[in-house]
């Protein structure tokens, strides 16, 4: 394997792939910040920079290395060099594993450069743990709702004749987006995982209120979370970050609470609404931006390893242009499918052709959910602490299991198709 690694590494190095990627990274850091405009706030500026600059570098790296991977085996086969390699006492697995290691090494160098340039700018906010309400999965509530709908005598024939799995799918979507209404004087209690109450200071609630009719309705309320509390007086129709202060004079050491609750009391005169599964998060301090960048870069590297393995697999079976085309289409479809599902919820009156699109999107999301789970750019931009557990999971799935499966197939194909022509 060392030989095929060294060969691919030299090809990437002497073919100026690494140089070009490093130059593009430097150019992105030099020029993109001048092109994009933030919303004027510090946090908005940071988020936009991180999404655009390191995000673009990551995207370019994914596409460029995927295209390189698509060419490596196919080009070797088409130029008959693969035949010269496989007649030696070398396993086909090593023939495809070496190039993967070389591509990952190139990605590691570029990502390290990217991380270094990003951190060198300085002034980034520390990362924060993000906790969402500890609610039962929407499927549970949706199933219960479905039973009630089917048991009700008022249910229309159209609904009854609809397949139950489709009804369930619609109800799950609605449950995930369900609004809780908090009337004047009323309270909303949301349970959070115990770790959320583990911080001794710097607890922040990120929340997004909606009002039913009046977009400018004033908001007034009190929020408490264990020993912390804050007054809520503003509604900008966007996410608010409300820092909680210690309500007890003696100490705000973390309380031992099994299920801490975030309580909001509406002291205003208007009804306010929020979606418990989407609009509320408790943020607690985690660690430095630099460490978060390291973990996010590790996740990026794992995803790139998977993409390169996918490219090498395609390259072993298809010609170079067909492999590149197939890979880019697959990448685009994988990126688009979740957006299709979130933008087009299923409804009863959805035309059949649209439903086919939804089924396909669901299929793509299902098939790629394991390898597409890491969202390093988004986490980095929002300051969300990237958990080591998630990095480990990405390593296992994206950098070990999935690539090994793909490379095993590629090795099998290489053994059978080493000769380019008959």
């Amino acid at each position, binding site marked *: 394997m060392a*030989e095929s690694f*060294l*060969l691919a590494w030299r090809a990437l190095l002497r*073919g100026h792939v690494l140089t070009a990627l490093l130059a593009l990274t430097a150019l992105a850091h030099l020029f993109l910040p001048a092109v994009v405009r933030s919303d004027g706030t510090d946090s908005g500026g940071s988020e936009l920079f991180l999404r655009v600059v390191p995000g673009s570098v990551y995207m370019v790296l994914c596409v460029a290395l995927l295209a390189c991977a698509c060419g490596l085996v196919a080009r070797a086969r088409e130029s008959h060099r693969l035949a010269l390699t496989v*007649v030696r*006492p070398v396993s086909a697995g090593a023939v495809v594993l070496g190039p993967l290691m070389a591509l990952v090494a190139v990605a590691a160098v570029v990502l390290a450069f990217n991380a270094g340039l990003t951190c060198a700018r300085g002034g980034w906010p520390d990362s924060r743990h993000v906790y969402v309400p500890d609610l039962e999965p929407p499927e549970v509530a949706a199933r219960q709702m479905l039973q009630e709908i089917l048991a009700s005598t008022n249910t229309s024939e159209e609904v009854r004749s609809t397949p139950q799995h489709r009804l369930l799918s619609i109800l799950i979507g609605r449950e995930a987006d369900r609004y809780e209404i908090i009337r004047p004087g009323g309270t909303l209690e949301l349970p959070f995982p115990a770790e959320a109450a583990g911080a001794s200071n710097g607890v922040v609630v990120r929340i997004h209120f909606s009002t039913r009719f009046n977009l400018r309705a004033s908001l007034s309320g009190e929020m408490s979370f264990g020993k912390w509390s804050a007054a809520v007086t503003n509604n900008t129709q966007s996410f608010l970050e409300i820092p909680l202060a210690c309500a007890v004079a003696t100490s705000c050491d973390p309380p031992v609470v099994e299920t801490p609750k975030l309580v909001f009391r509406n002291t205003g005169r208007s009804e306010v609404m929020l979606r418990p599964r989407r609009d509320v998060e408790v943020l607690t301090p985690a660690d430095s931006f630099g460490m978060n960048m390291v973990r996010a870069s590790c996740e990026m590297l794992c995803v790139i390893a998977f993409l390169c393995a996918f490219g090498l697999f395609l390259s072993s079976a298809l010609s170079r242009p067909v492999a590149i085309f197939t890979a880019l289409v697959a990448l685009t479809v994988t990126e688009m499918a979740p957006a299709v599902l979130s933008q087009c919820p299923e409804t009863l009156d959805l035309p059949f052709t649209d439903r086919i699109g939804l089924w396909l999107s669901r299929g793509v999301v299902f098939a790629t959910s394991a390898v597409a789970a890491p969202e390093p750019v988004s986490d980095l931009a929002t300051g969300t602490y990237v958990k080591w557990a998630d990095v480990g999971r990405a390593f296992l799935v994206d950098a070990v299991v999935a690539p090994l499966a793909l490379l095993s197939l590629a090795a099998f194909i290489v053994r059978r198709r080493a*000769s380019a022509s008959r």
Partner: protein
Amino acid sequence: MSEPVIEIVGLRKTFRDFWMRPVAEAVRGIDLSVERGDVFGLLGPNGSGKSTTIKMVLGLLAPSGGTIRLFGQPPRARAARARLGYLPELSYLHPFLTARETIRYYAGLSSLDRRTARARTAELLARVGLESVADRAVGGFSKGMARRVALAAALVSNPELLILDEPTSGLDPIGTRDVKELIRTLAKDGVTVLMTSHLLADTEDVCTKIAILSQGRVAACGRTADLLTRTQDARFTVEGLAEDEARALADELSRRYGKPVAFDHPSVPLEKFFAEAVGAARG
């Protein structure tokens, strides 16, 4: 008698399209046996099945029927591949590698340890006359130089069986002579060589055995000397005989045996003459 290095029995290859319909029957039942130390020439016109046979021997194509054994093992067996060296028809080198790196790369693929690989690379670079350009990228090499690098790469693992596809293709006459000399030396050292060539003179010069393929079948096979020698005729070479003396001798022989006698003057092979001329010019 020792086990043959290559044993081919009833070998057939039919190429099929995507729907598994037969498209071409390239090899139609070949039986061959190559013994240790043989320099075996596989000859035939284009489309006779030479390349397909070589690819099957190398394990790059699976036969449709029949069997191939290399050292008593299937061609794809790792142990068989470890004893094999291959020089393809075109050199197919990685243009961004230097000559040294290319040979080291193939040494690594043949599982040679670092020290041995380094020593063997230096030895082969000297043997093919490329020491002075060892650290230049092979992408800038002439066809002949690239051929020498490819030959060195084929020899790097000290193979017991060397498969050469058009080994002198692209070489100048001196390079051709060197390669033929190298093949003879290797054969003397016990290396078995299976080669194909369209240059019949080269094949005749180095091959101890030949098989002529035509339309996927063996048209003729045997020891080169046995196949080419016409034992019913005789030819004499008398040094220092003048034209009129030779004519008189021919007449005498014709009269004595009652058969027509022809004579000619031997000529030096062009390859030898060329080498001598170039050698003289270089001083």
